[in-house]
């Protein structure tokens, strides 16, 4: 906890503007020319030393993509994207797959240090300790702050800079437990049988406009494989950073949890402050076999654009988990504070009998941000259950939409869902919208839906301020209370960071 606090303070000091991660790093890069064609895809594939089958897969996706139209059903507005005006590959030079941290460009290590992501294993060991309940005092307070205690006190990190993974920490130690954690590029080379078996099996190359584009041009991302019966000994984490101008980031993440295994995975991301919009179109696929559990947490903090709505990241992401095995469980937790536009619906396919899907979300929008996010819970197996808790907070001139779908297949007997969507408005110029779709083709399905929209009342704010808490902190306190049930689902380190982040995102939203 102190480590995170320090990080936040540090980053606060670095930047003067509201977005704390807006710095740009001058690093020599190797870039593909702008534009998208089969040649671009061949170039990416060659840069990555990929086998022939991978290139074919990409080209198949590309040809499919040419036939697709950009979707327009989301409640977001933006000028048409020129897909020929983007660099599809950018990698720091001197990056020839470093064997160890010593070989990583020191400038890159400094970037991550500045972001508060320590990439040196010994530092991680020294800096992040399991919070001790030394006194009753600490016990009571930290229990109040969090019910969720960090399991091992250490985090393995895969750092992705523009199009490539620059380093993955703790690989050796994970390997001892049988866990594979590496960049997807490395996995394609080193574990082709696993990648071929699972890649595209949850989000097929035909899935949707952005996912298909991603399949054609994805550059890097993380790969996790947890073998049968293994409980991953530490939190796994990927930190994404877009640095280059006019560059799209298309990452691909694939997580496989074999029978009876467990893994918790965290994802964080930031980008420099620029006047132009940048595209980020990721695909994440999760596969949980019998009795396996995957917990996937995101703290999304891409550059949201300036106060007038100029610049920012377009975040068009397809995330889907497949509860393929019986009694498997997938849980998505997301804290979305960044991006000019967010288009994102982490979903669960509840295929196995007695499988369970969860979606916990906090989406904060301020300025001119537009968020259209939610989830899909597709009940296919018997006795499947799902739970959706969504908290949307809109301030400034932003628009914040929850869009969700819950469906029960005709064979999904006793499917159960509980949905709770709460929206909180700050000020009079923002909007919150809830668009739930529910479809039960089975009479035994039980779906519950609750939704509320509220405004922070002046009475509440006055009361909190009367105790000496300044206005912005008062709003942050009330908002953090509002999102408490979701924050509790986050691993401890992220929970504290997420709370601070929400406070920072809402700066300037009052008065």
């Amino acid at each position, binding site marked *: 906890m102190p480590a995170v606090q320090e990080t936040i303070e540090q980053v606060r000091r670095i930047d003067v503007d509201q977005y704390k991660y807006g710095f740009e790093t001058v690093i020599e890069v190797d870039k593909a020319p702008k534009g998208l064609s089969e040649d671009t895809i061949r170039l990416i594939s060659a840069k990555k030393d990929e086998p022939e089958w991978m290139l074919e897969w990409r080209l198949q996706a590309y040809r499919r993509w040419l036939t697709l139209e950009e979707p327009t059903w989301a409640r977001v507005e933006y000028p048409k994207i020129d897909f020929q005006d983007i660099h599809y590959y950018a990698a720091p030079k001197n990056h020839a797959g470093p064997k160890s941290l010593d070989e990583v460009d020191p400038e890159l290590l400094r970037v991550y240090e500045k972001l508060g992501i320590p990439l040196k294993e010994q530092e991680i060991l020294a800096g992040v300790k399991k919070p001790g309940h030394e006194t009753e005092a600490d016990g*009571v307070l930290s229990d*109040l*702050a969090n019910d969720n205690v960090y399991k091992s006190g250490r985090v393995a990190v895969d750092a992705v800079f523009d199009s490539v993974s620059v380093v993955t920490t703790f690989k050796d130690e994970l390997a001892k437990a049988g866990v594979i954690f590496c960049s997807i590029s490395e996995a394609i080379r080193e574990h082709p049988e696993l990648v071929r078996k699972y890649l595209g099996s949850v989000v097929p190359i035909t899935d949707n406009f952005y996912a298909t584009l991603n399949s054609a041009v994805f550059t890097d991302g993380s790969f996790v494989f947890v073998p049968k019966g293994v409980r991953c000994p530490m939190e796994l984490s990927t930190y994404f950073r877009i640095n280059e101008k006019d560059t799209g980031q298309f990452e691909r993440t694939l997580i496989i949890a074999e029978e009876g295994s467990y893994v918790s995975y965290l994802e964080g991301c930031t980008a420099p402050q620029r006047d132009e919009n940048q595209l980020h179109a990721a695909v994440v696929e999760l596969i949980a076999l019998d009795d396996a559990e995957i917990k996937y947490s995101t703290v999304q903090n891409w550059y949201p654009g300036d106060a007038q709505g100029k610049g920012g990241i377009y975040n068009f992401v397809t995330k889907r988990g497949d509860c393929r095995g019986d009694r498997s469980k997938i849980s998505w937790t997301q804290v979305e504070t960044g991006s000019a536009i967010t288009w994102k619906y982490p979903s669960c396919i509840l295929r196995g009998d007695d499988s369970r899907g969860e979606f916990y979300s906090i989406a904060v929008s301020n300025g001119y941000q537009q968020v259209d996010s939610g989830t899909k819970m597709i009940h296919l197996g018997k006795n499947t259950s799902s739970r959706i808790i969504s908290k949307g907070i809109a301030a400034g001139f932003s628009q914040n939409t929850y869009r969700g779908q819950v469906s029960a297949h005709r064979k999904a007997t006793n499917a159960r869902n509980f949905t709770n969507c709460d929206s909180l408005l700050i000020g009079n110029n923002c909007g919150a919208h809830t668009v739930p779709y529910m479809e039960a083709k089975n009479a035994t399905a039980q779906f519950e839906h609750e939704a509320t929209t509220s405004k922070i009342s002046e009475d509440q704010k006055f009361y909190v*301020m009367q105790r*000496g808490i300044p206005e912005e902190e008062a709003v942050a306190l*009330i908002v953090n*209370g*509002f999102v408490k049930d979701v924050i509790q689902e986050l691993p401890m380190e992220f929970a504290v960071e997420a709370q601070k982040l929400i406070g920072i995102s809402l700066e300037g939203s009052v008065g």
Partner: protein
Amino acid sequence: MLEIKNLHARIADTGVEIIRGLNLTVKAGEVAAIMGPNGSGKSTLSYILAGREDYEVTEGDVLYNGESVLEMDPAERAAAGIFLAFQYPLEIPGVATMEFLKVALNAQRKARGEEPLKVPELLKRVKEAAGSLDIEMGMLKRPLNVGFSGGEKKRAEILQMKLLQPKLCVLDETDSGLDIDALKIVAEGVNALRSPDRAMVVITHYQRLLEYIVPDTVHVLYRGQVVRSGDKTLASELEANGYAAIVEEAA
């Protein structure tokens, strides 16, 4: 300590004038009771002292230690030592009482340029204060005021007052909704805070509370003005004769 001079104030939205030339002086160490019939402006006065934005001061001034507070926002006034115990404390869902106490205390310390309180010290103080008010630690883990009974809410208000150690305490109808046992506990809590450098303004409709918190002065508020002031015997007189006599006199 507190000097209210010819105060006129109205509801910002509707322009209805509630306070019409109110004068009141409360010295350090003094406990002043404000009494009056419903609608006389008692609660409004408490909100104006605490800096609520819904009211607009059109004339006069409120001086605290000789300086006007009218330009200060509620948080600044609180940090300067003005505390309002609410008649209806607000619920803050998801924010544990203990967490709220910590944030409030440290915000005030920060405003005064002091270091945040270390957790063990904070806990020691909270425990002491809570014990004297018959508040169990379990209650401190619950979200502030959410699902609290009337008595719990009022005790939580006094707990905050004890911890924040304000210089000017304004208690708005603190006795409302309390049974006699709870009233005694709350009154003891308030009496323990009486000191030569602290002033209290106790707003109440009934004389009952003043049997437990014995005031130095009593002021009757009617139609936004203090129409009569006296010592504690004035409260008993009101109890015996009702407001009617005084009101007629004023009219």
